[in-house]
């Protein structure tokens, strides 16, 4: 009997939901806005699908409809990746502790 690979992926998915559940509950409420921007940035890992789609096929047909959708998705995801991580960085840099020497 062989197990369908789908079952493995489903297992990863379900376990990741649980990891997400516990990790996110431990996020301090004051960082909920950076949490949203960073989750937004990492969900743009969808760019890997876009890259595969865009580079598929031989060089003559690189502008097939399917490729073009891939290229479009790359731009969108790239905006998100850079924008998401950098804006998170910018926000996190602002969180400072009280100066002790005061």
């Amino acid at each position, binding site marked *: 009997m062989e197990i369908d690979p789908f079952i493995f*992926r489903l297992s990863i*998915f379900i376990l990741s939901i649980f990891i*997400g559940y516990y990790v996110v509950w431990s996020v301090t409420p*004051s960082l909920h806005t950076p*949490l*949203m921007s960073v989750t937004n*940035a990492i969900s743009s890992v969808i760019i890997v699908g876009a*890259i595969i789609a*865009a580079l598929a096929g031989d060089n003559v047909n690189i502008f097939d*409809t399917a490729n073009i959708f891939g290229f479009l998705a790359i731009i969108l995801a790239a905006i998100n990746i850079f924008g998401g991580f950098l804006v998170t960085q910018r926000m996190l840099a602002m969180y400072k502790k009280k100066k002790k020497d005061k």
Partner: protein
Amino acid sequence: MISANVLALFYLISGVLFILALRGLSSPESSRQGNLFGIVGMAIAIGVTILSVGNFSTGFLYLLILILIGGSIGTFIAFKIPMTAMPELVAGFHSLVGLAAVFVAISAFLNPEVFNLGSPGDIKIASLIEMSLGAAIGAITFTGSIIAFLKLRGIMSGSPITFFGQHYLNLALGLILLGLIFYLCKTQVDNWFWMIIIISFVLGILLIIPIGGADMPVVISMLNSYSGWAAAGIGFTLENTALIITGALVGSSGAILSYIMCKGMNRSFFNVILGGWGATEQSSSNNSKEQKPVKNGNADDAAFLMKNASSVIIVPGYGMAVAQAQHALREMVDALKKNGVKVTYAIHPVAGRMPGHMNVLLAEANVPYDEVFELEEINNDFANCDVAYVIGANDVTNPVAKTDPQSPIYGMPILDVEKSKSVLFVKRSLSPGYAGIDNDLFYRDNTLMLFADAKKMTEDIIKNL
């Protein structure tokens, strides 16, 4: 060229780094390192994908150029955006993830061979289901986020748009979607696929228009969650672990945030997404509104009260964001501290237009984060505090939530501002807050109303300190 197994291992590493990125956010100190983990994870995922495709000709050149273009746009936005506009920015970014998911799904549908899903007209049933779910959720996220963006930006009115039979229409569209997915799997005809995407676009708009401005924290969190599920759907289609892990993380993150926001308003998730408060409750609240006397103060009175207090708690709300008063507020607090007054900040979970909105604004104004407290941490301190300075908050301080079971906000956790010796309430007018109900606090003996723009009033107080 790397083998599929090595590739999968690298995706796993990316997934783990993303988990660490979220884990870092458990405290501000570890958060910066966490963000770095996220960036490395992303770089690994992109790098190994390019290597695995191994096509370094014309297409690769275009790919680099496009990443460069998108990256520059993203970088530009990230550095230019004012912190007060963070809710709209996040909504806008969600829409991009949604649309990217739709595009990838379309691409996979048109050219399934590339992803080993079969051939056009003969795609594996499981893959078809996964890609249509990914495309549908992505499309809903896209248009839904656009509406949220327009409402937050003020281009579209924040008031709920409702019409007769709205929820039945949405239900019907949802059922049609399921039917279309079924037929798509059965017949493999492209038109069903396009129909799925179009109906999902429409559904995304319809789902968000009935939700009012102050419920936006829930909406943004919900769309955050959707963008995760869309990514996971695509991850299943492409058999990509990095995407599946990330999608699950983001999906549950958004779901938890929505839950926290709903709890902050003591409302069920369905109550929020099925439509606005303001629209339905307004009529019952307005008829009891006779002219009650309020005590009207000015900046001089406020400065005097606070200067002579030993402890002051600041309660910021959305009004502070609108007036951009956070910097003036910090200056006022600095002046008070010089006078030996102990000052802390109290943040309600749903203050502002997105989770953690107030914290970011205060951080921007250089307020140390260990002076900023959440509702449960600080609520008992109001009883011992001399002055509560309410700036731009309203419903979250309304004692009616504890006393009047008829009130629409009954049961909502509130900041016990009324327990402090005196309350300074900065507000432009006596108009009710988002919930459309009068705030009892305005008419209390220990409340002094300061009618002015939040920023201007705070600046005037500084002059008088």
